[in-house]
């Protein structure tokens, strides 16, 4: 996983709440078996609308998405995070994220930054007034800067540390392999296995 310290890129104001994962990436795109190449699937239905924000020239190269509350609700599809990442987004800002989405984001190096809704509104205003404006997200300082405007964001310390270090989750867990072995040795013997039964 690529380490993340600061990122500067075009801010995209997405004035919608409850952006569910079916909107981020419709189920039809989940049929792929690869881990990359989902950029065309991002907001696929909305992108048919010429007026959609990402179809407006200044916002096209966007990499910092500023969305309404309850971003990423619905299904657990991690493809939502891949699609955002493949398109070029490194950061999503919202006042509230769905839990599974936020978890998935952290694992893929996408920063899910929680800002106060009032600060989201301020960012929306600035980004709409100056389309294509660059935004700087500083993970060390936990701030978002757009021109003169600087607002704080929240992210939990552990996810922040992993993002800053670019640490892979599985490798971290496998550091506890001997503890996993001991745990397994002590499990109740009546617990089921999926080994096929002979009848």
């Amino acid at each position, binding site marked *: 996983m690529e380490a993340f310290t600061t990122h500067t890129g075009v801010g995209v104001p997405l004035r919608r*709440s*409850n952006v*569910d994962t*079916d*909107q981020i990436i*419709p*189920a*039809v795109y*989940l*049929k*792929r*078996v*690869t*881990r990359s190449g989902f950029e065309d699937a991002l907001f696929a*239905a909305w992108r048919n609308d010429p007026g959609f924000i990402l179809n407006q020239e200044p916002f096209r190269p966007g990499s910092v998405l500023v969305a*309404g*509350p*309850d971003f990423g*609700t*619905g*299904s*657990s*599809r*991690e*493809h939502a*995070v891949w699609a955002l990442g493949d398109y070029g987004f490194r950061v999503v800002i919202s006042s*509230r994220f*769905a*839990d*599974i989405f936020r*978890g*998935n984001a952290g*694992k*893929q190096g996408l920063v899910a930054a929680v800002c106060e809704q009032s600060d989201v509104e301020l960012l929306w205003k600035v980004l709409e007034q100056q389309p294509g404006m660059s935004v700087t997200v500083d993970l060390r300082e936990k701030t978002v800067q757009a021109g003169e405007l600087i607002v704080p964001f929240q992210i*939990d*310390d*552990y*996810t922040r540390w992993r993002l800053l270090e670019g640490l892979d*989750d*599985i490798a*971290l*867990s*496998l550091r*506890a*392999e001997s*503890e*996993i072995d001991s*745990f*397994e040795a002590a*499990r*109740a*013997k*009546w*617990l*089921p*296995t*999926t*080994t*096929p*039964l002979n009848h």
Partner: protein
Amino acid sequence: MGRTLAEKVWDAHVVRKGGGTDEPDLLYIDLHLVHEVTSPQAFDGLRLAGRQVRRPDLTIATEDHNVPTVWSANLLAQGTGAAISDPVSRTQVDTLRRNCEEFGVRLHPMGDVDQGIVHVVGPQLGLTQPGMTVVCGDSHTSTHGAFGALAFGIGTSEVEHVLATQTLPLRPFRTMAVTVQGELHPGVTAKDLILAVIAEIGTAGGQGHVLEYRGDAIRKLSMEARMTICNMSIEAGARAGMIAPDATTFEYLKGRPHAPQGADWDAAVEYWTGLATDEDAEFDREVIINADELAPFVTWGTNPGQGLPLDATIPFPEQIADENERAAAESALSYMDLAPGTPLREISVDTVFLGSCTNGRIEDLRAAAEVLRGRQVAGGVRMLVVPGSMRVRRQAEDEGLDTIFEAAGAEWRQAGCSMCLAMNPDKLAPGERSASTSNRNFEGRQGKGGRTHLVSPLVAAATAVRGTLSSPDDLF
């Protein structure tokens, strides 16, 4: 201080306690359910890193999201090329088969008697048991919480993580009691109850929490009804839903293929009995619902929280105080092509879908069949009946339910996720409207431009007969 059910299950699975700020606990996973949609990239990740599946004997796979629900044994015998016409769906299914073969994971493919929706298959095999941790790359994994298991959906990276380590790094969830007092009236089902709960607490109301459903009304529910309730916990934003195991749970489990036997059974029951939330345990939140006040409940909008009793009328957005909710209602009504003030009973549908991991079990099929017995599906309405698993299908056929459905003019299908989500040939056409026993009414969920009303199996059946949203009480 005492502990809640969720806390007890959590504590019993901590491999390593997280230290420091926000460092997660490492939690052991007892059962990992796998399907073709969220697993290919996880297996790919293992391959890239040169890792194995640590515990194939705690892992089981089935084909569900992509499979067509119309096929014959003859067609299946010719391979996936003949059975699955969509090349992309076929690739996912073929990829799952290859991965299971390569990594030694038990798979129930199309045509197998234990093939079906992963959340129907696990419980029916007796693999889902109280006190276990159960995960799957699917948000409706919360279904298994009906047994008092801690069961939750995970993303593909986590699928890979569990495959490689049989553990997950997680921070403890908060707990929320959903106490349902009283008793449901006849004709009011678990589906109505959970839709009412979601309307009450909102689609983000359970965020970060494990919901524990408790109270008299829950105790009286069958295991299948409990599964319907826990299934939709995710639609309230919760990580999981749970119900303490009791005699109903043990009765359901006893004799299932993978349930403990003999002395093991006694030891297990003793352990399971101790899992219930302690009297002096405290929940982070509590909501109380009165079952007696509930009626058949249907959704009118594009998220599962936008629901109302069937007697109600479409709301006027301008009367909604919260700005975001008002905007959501306006956009929902526009997408749903519905006018404020319209009685819900006057909404006509093209399609009725009975099935899914929410309502595709035998009791759901029985309830709908009872309504349809001797009646006809209304002209211009198509009704799909899709059993949650091939075993449910077989049982329904043994009971003659298929005959009732077909006599009424409904289509009797093979098992799968079907029209719950538009990933297989069962879809709504643009502009079509359904009454669906599934779990999500998001825009385009059942097909691009399709409009979904979430309903119970009883309402689905009555709606099929009348052609407009209805309950069995509307039939004569």
